[in-house]
């Protein structure tokens, strides 16, 4: 595992449906993260096709927080059945944070908004589970476009100083992940890329959006699509976009 590996951690609650009752022999039903893993595999396959000695790849770690022993073996077997997951980490809730650090996780994905110290993003439910040949990653323009001068509009939206400070910190933390995604994205051309990046500014003005575009560019990430909503509801647009990963650090709760 080199410094270039984009280690992402996914909770087994999101890969498999652990709620519904299972017969002992059959593998677990697919969860929200399934489409994400499939899309990640497409990206890795294409990267390896470009260069066999590729080190810039996704690595997906399956995390199990406080799992029962029975569930563990079930998860193990099901994962092998469906996917090529490299690593499994079962840990307690207390050791969760440490496990993330120890495994150099660059992004933690969950369908819940968890409170962790590594960069975390929302795993989105895909309407169409079948077509997964493109991994779609969405970044919040309101956060990336945040500068010292532009925090006023967040205050006007009702966020306090502590929250705004946290958003600034989140922007700093996502840089590493964004840079790696940028490098990966550059391996492919404008068209026919298995990795697709999107910038969405929900509240900020067009200048916030422009700042966000330039910031990402400075980090080496040229996004494919950009949206500036100026307060228009984002759900209809997200329904069309169907991103796998949405990073906004809980801004749009």
């Amino acid at each position, binding site marked *: 595992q080199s410094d270039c590996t984009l280690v992402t951690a996914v909770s087994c609650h999101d890969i498999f449906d652990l709620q519904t009752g299972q017969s002992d022999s059959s593998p677990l039903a697919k969860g929200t993260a399934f489409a994400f893993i499939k899309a990640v595999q497409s990206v890795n396959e294409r990267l390896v096709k470009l260069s066999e000695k590729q080190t810039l790849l996704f690595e997906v770690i399956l995390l199990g927080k406080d799992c029962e022993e029975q569930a563990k073996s079930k998860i193990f077997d099901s994962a092998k059945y469906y996917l090529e997951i490299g690593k499994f980490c079962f840990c307690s809730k207390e050791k969760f944070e440490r496990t993330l650090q120890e495994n150099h996780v660059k992004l933690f994905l969950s369908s819940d908004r968890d409170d962790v110290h590594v960069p975390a993003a929302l795993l989105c439910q895909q309407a169409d589970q079948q077509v997964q040949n493109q991994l779609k990653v969405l970044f919040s323009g309101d956060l990336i476009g945040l500068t010292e001068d532009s925090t006023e509009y967040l205050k006007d939206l*009702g966020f306090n100083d502590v929250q705004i400070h946290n958003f600034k910190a989140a922007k700093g933390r996502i840089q590493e992940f964004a840079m790696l995604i940028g490098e990966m994205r550059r391996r492919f051309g404008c068209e026919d890329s298995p990795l697709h990046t999107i910038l969405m500014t929900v509240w900020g*003005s067009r200048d916030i959006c422009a700042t966000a575009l330039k910031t990402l560019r400075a980090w080496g990430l040229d996004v*494919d699509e950009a949206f500036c909503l100026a307060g228009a509801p984002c759900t209809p647009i997200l329904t069309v976009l169907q991103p796998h990963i949405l990073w906004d650090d809980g801004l749009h709760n």
Partner: protein
Amino acid sequence: MSEIKNNEASPAPAGGASGAEKDWAEAKAAFDNLKSKKPRPPKPHTAVTIAVSSRTLFNMVEERKVWEQEGLERYVSYQQEHEEQPLKPGAAFPFVKALMTVNTRLRELYPEGEELFDIVLMTNNHAQVGVRLINSINHYDLLIERFCMTGGKSPIGYLKAYMTNLYLSKDSDKVQEAIEAGIAAATMFTPDMETELSETQLRVAFDGDAVLFSDESEIIVKQHGLDTFFEHERKNENKPLAQGPLKCFLEALGKLQKKFYAKNERLNCPIRTYLVTARSAASSGARVLKTLRSWGLEIDEALFLAGAPKGPLLQKIRPHIFFDDQMFHIEGAKELGTIAAHVPYGIGQKYHKGKLIEQLAKKS
């Protein structure tokens, strides 16, 4: 086509509607407090949303050449290299400025109003071209805060998501897709010469058949000739024509006009609509006027040309945009300096200068 705004049943998941209200309230608060006091964009649900493509808003002929001759990658780098250079105005630029004028007047009369024009930049362009587009929008201080850069994907899904009332593009394929999806749309053409347009009044001119109305009567002309057409129209004078792709846009303009009338501004209304039709008033005009009346719509001026060319009349009207379904009329308008927009709808698409296109192809 106005169903788009009324259809709240579409895509929002549970809690979506209240989430949208919350989003809206927060955005309203943010914009209201902006130090620059820039007017905030209206709620999409009540706004008249006009989506313009980058090539209609700005003149991108040079840039387009780069794309055609040197490919997409070179085009994107070219745009980045020229990022600080504002683009020159395009065919839809005067129209957009006129929409802004109307908004200013509406805000004076209704300071809290949400029934305004909302101009959205809807472009197929890669997001990297976005910086140059935003810089250009800033240069001209245009009232465009919402945009969609789809990086090559079809804009149709996003047009619906933004509740678009009218879509203008240079790409006739996209325009056709939009019309088929029930969105009013037209392909814009740059006039051959510049005309001085009103800076205080938005003027929109529409052809009748196959634009405001369906192409049912045009089919009769093409297939059975003028005499049959006149007879048919007389017989059916009191039967309203079916609606055409731009009817809902006329309706949206009418709603905004009424806001001025309500404040006693009828004589000074900054929106004026025109019907410019090849029909003749005496033999086939009544049905058209009665249809509009049955829809509860008003048009400020109805001009019946009885087959005469539209170009000279449009030169006098000087609309910011003229919609027609027949390329013959678009070309005539454009030659004399009118900003024309082609509506690719109906039987007129299969004909060129009165002759069936397939037959023309066979002859050559």
